[in-house]
């Protein structure tokens, strides 16, 4: 089966109009398209960086706050500068983009502009037809991140199963940290806060993130982790979003190989984030490529009995109770503490409030991760 079409959607900087793009995203994924959603108020640099790292076929920009002629043109110029000419650009802006504007934008390289009144079906058809064709042979990438992105695509599309030795340029393996836990526990926010600390502490270091969202075979997916990240929009962060494409357990069929490649691509750290998992999930193999595992819990897991059923509580090196400002957090902490004591594995338990700026709990977690203590 052919791989789904992958596109990136975003709303430009200084623009918070996300109502249209939310509706369009849903329609795209309903029709088998994988959408990496970058969110609103995003700069040209953020959009182009994400598009290259995610190696999407096209960027869809929904602009309602004016300045679209310049903004679209800047996106295209930067794509070209980075050698990513094969990433196409389309968009819309209701009544704010006139036919006259659209003509000017097309002259500058925009594929298509959808006007007010265009049906959702028309947009979906266009994207599937225009960007669904096989890419054919690809020109040689200009930048290391782009090369890496192309290789990840090949792995994900099943065009390359293993990394041959010759491709492994960097013998130095990154420290790989796996994050898992139920949906809504705040994994993405926590990772983004850790990235901020990493960037501050390692002025030259680089970090990679492999993030997952669920999807069914042959269908679309909303890959939305980037939309809520603020610190990870940075040239020193390489992020790739993957749909699970039908695989249970929180990861994708291509995860293992992608991770193996990322781990030897010159990063100091590679963070892997699973989809929101259930009680039985144990996404990371023992003695596998992942060096350290973190289970992120929400204080509202239900009764103490539920804890006995969560397999990852036996396996994780570090358990984080996020949202520890919630009323139930204290109870959660002591119940989980007891549960971990039964294991006698010297697992660490940390309380965090990831949403809070400069949260001391996140500082402690960062210290634990960077010293590599188990």
């Amino acid at each position, binding site marked *: 089966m052919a791989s789904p079409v992958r596109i990136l959607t975003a709303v430009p900087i200084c623009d918070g109009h996300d109502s249209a793009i939310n509706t369009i995203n849903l329609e795209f994924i309903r029709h088998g398209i994988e959408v990496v*959603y970058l969110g609103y108020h995003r700069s040209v640099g953020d959009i182009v960086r994400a598009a290259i790292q995610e190696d999407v076929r096209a960027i869809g920009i929904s602009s309602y706050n004016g300045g679209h002629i310049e903004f679209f043109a800047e996106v295209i110029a930067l794509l070209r500068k980075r050698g990513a000419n094969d990433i196409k650009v389309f968009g819309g802006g209701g009544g704010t983009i006139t036919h006259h504007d659209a003509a000017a934008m097309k002259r500058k390289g925009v594929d298509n502009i959808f006007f007010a009144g265009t049906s959702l079906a028309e947009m979906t058809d266009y994207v599937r037809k225009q960007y669904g064709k096989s890419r054919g042979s690809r020109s040689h990438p200009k930048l290391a991140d782009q090369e890496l992105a192309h290789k990840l695509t090949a792995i994900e599309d099943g065009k390359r199963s293993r990394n041959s030795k010759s491709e492994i340029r960097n013998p130095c393996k990154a420290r790989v940290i796996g994050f898992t836990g139920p949906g809504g526990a705040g994994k993405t926010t926590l990772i983004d806060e850790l990235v901020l600390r990493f960037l501050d502490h390692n002025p030259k270091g680089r970090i990679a993130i492999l993030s997952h969202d669920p999807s069914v075979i042959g269908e679309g997916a909303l890959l939305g982790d980037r939309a809520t990240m603020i610190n990870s929009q940075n040239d020193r962060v390489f992020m790739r979003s993957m749909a699970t494409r039908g695989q249970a357990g929180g990861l994708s069929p291509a995860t293992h190989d992608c991770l193996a490649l990322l781990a030897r691509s010159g990063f100091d750290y590679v963070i892997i984030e699973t989809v929101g998992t259930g009680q039985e999930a144990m996404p990371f193999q023992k003695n596998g490529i992942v060096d350290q595992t973190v289970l992120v819990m929400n204080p509202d897991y239900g009764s103490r009995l539920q804890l006995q059923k969560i397999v990852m509580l036996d396996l994780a090196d570090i358990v984080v109770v996020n949202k520890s400002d919630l009323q139930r957090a204290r109870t959660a902490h002591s119940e989980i503490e007891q549960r971990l004591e039964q294991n006698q594995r010297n697992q660490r338990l940390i309380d965090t409030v990831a949403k809070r700026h400069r949260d001391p709990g996140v500082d402690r977690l960062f210290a634990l991760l960077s010293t590599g203590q188990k």
Partner: protein
Amino acid sequence: MSKLGQVVESIEKYNKFVLDQVKRARSDKDFGRDLLGRWNDIKAKIPTTRTPTGIPLPRLALPEIDEPGEIARYLSGEGLPGEFPFLNGAYREMYLEPIREVESLEKNDEAKNGKSAKKIAPAEEPTRLFSGLMLAEDTNERFHFLTAHQRTHRLSTAFDGPTLYGMDSDADGVFGKIGEGGVAIDTVEDMVRLYDGFDLGSPKFSASMTISGPAPIIMAMYIAAAKRRFGPSVVPKLRGTIQADIFKEVQAQNETIFPIEPSLRFLTDMVEFTTHEMPRWYPISISGYHIGEAGSTPVQQAAYTLSNGFAYAEMFAARGIPVDQFGPRLSFFLDCGLDAEYIALARVSRRIWAIGMRDVFGAGPKAQLYKLHIQTSGRSLIAAEFKNNLTRTAAELVLAYMNATNSCHSNSADEPFTTPSEEWIRLSANGQAILLEESGVFKHTMNMLSGSPGMKAVERAVEAAILDEFREIERLGGVLPAVEERYQRSQIQNAAHRYEQQIYDGTRPIIALNKYRNGGDDIPEVKLVRTPRKKQQLQVDRLAKFKKKNAEKAKRALHKLASVVERGENCFPMLLEAVEVCSLGQITGRLQEVVGRFRPMV
């Protein structure tokens, strides 16, 4: 229980009180007789006016009831216009024209003798002219043009994208957005230019600023600009409104720049300052409009707007600002579409607000008023056969005035595909004039269309649904926790999606879109005025000059500002100092270093 839970209880209790009054009026003879007496007094005092054709009408229409129980239900359950619980209106006469006297022969003679009945000078024009384009001097010129023939100068300011996000015009990647969709403001010098030539301290001047995320900084710039021009004594005389609604930004409009809690803290800092120092200023406009436009149902719009309002009231009270000081300085802004709920949405909101403020917050009469501005729905307008939008907007206007809104903005029919052009702006403004001044629907009699069985049915259904929303928010721990769990956002998004779905499957008829479509595309080709690059460059150059001139002072001011914030003090006085030498982006940036950046919600 949060204050919102108490509000739910207060409404239930009040409704029970009304029923008790009804029962008592029926069982307690003396009480019943008193009520009947009062009712007859009220009726006797209602003046009579005349229509242009000469038939007499009462200035206030009351239900035709003469049974004490029903009188009790009306007076305590609805209240006369201007009386608690304000279902029928915040004020007594609203849009009524001056009384037309009986046209007797003598009167006509008097008129001929030049002794015609005194004309009551109309209050302020209800128009607010929303404007903002290019640079401060361009918007200023526009303001002068718009107000050239007006007695009162009520300016409504739209800001460009970078300003709305607290960024400077020289920030990376915003060049094309300078002066687009609103005016570019980077410094206090821009603010001086923006209102140049207007007497900011005059009782005939008021400024409205539609900005929320960086509102405290922009407010500080406005005050600093006023002081530069008129000296410090102007501050208590300043009149106007700043939107500053953080909750609706997080729930719907996405123009938030700091995390929620510090955003609310900076807002409260500003409110504390303005309620003490600027008693004529409205420091917040609690807005459902953007919630409605983002796709909410009417009930969600009303419920979130009210609950946001109560949450603000709780915060301001917790800061120690007396409710009777801040209460009268709160104002509301709602969307009005075509759904049946709009027949009474604002009426019910006004009643819930009054009861909650009185019984939960202990507010006096002036702090119980839900002062309301309505704008017709932009979302209800479509591009296909767009002239139909005139009818849509007209119907919405009728609904808005049936709800006795204090003021109203009607949208232009061409909005779905362009920034409104002068022709359609004029038609939409005329729509209001035709309804209020030409037609006899609203100018002779208060309550002309109120109190129909259908309206009452809508009132009951809407109130029950709003209280259900309150209970759900309360269950989630109150407004702030619900916002953080993105409850309102997800509800709004679901409603938006359902709306699209209904249009798609035809269960929501939209004429000329999914029904009675003739296929013709009559959208005129428009050419929009864009900010020339030269102007955008000028703004960047001016900003560079300002930054260079103030570099040293800015460094010190930002340092001081940061430490005030770190210490947890009210930062507004320090903002007033900082804006003298720092740009908007410099202040935003420094504050973000201290309190963090807003993490977008999807």
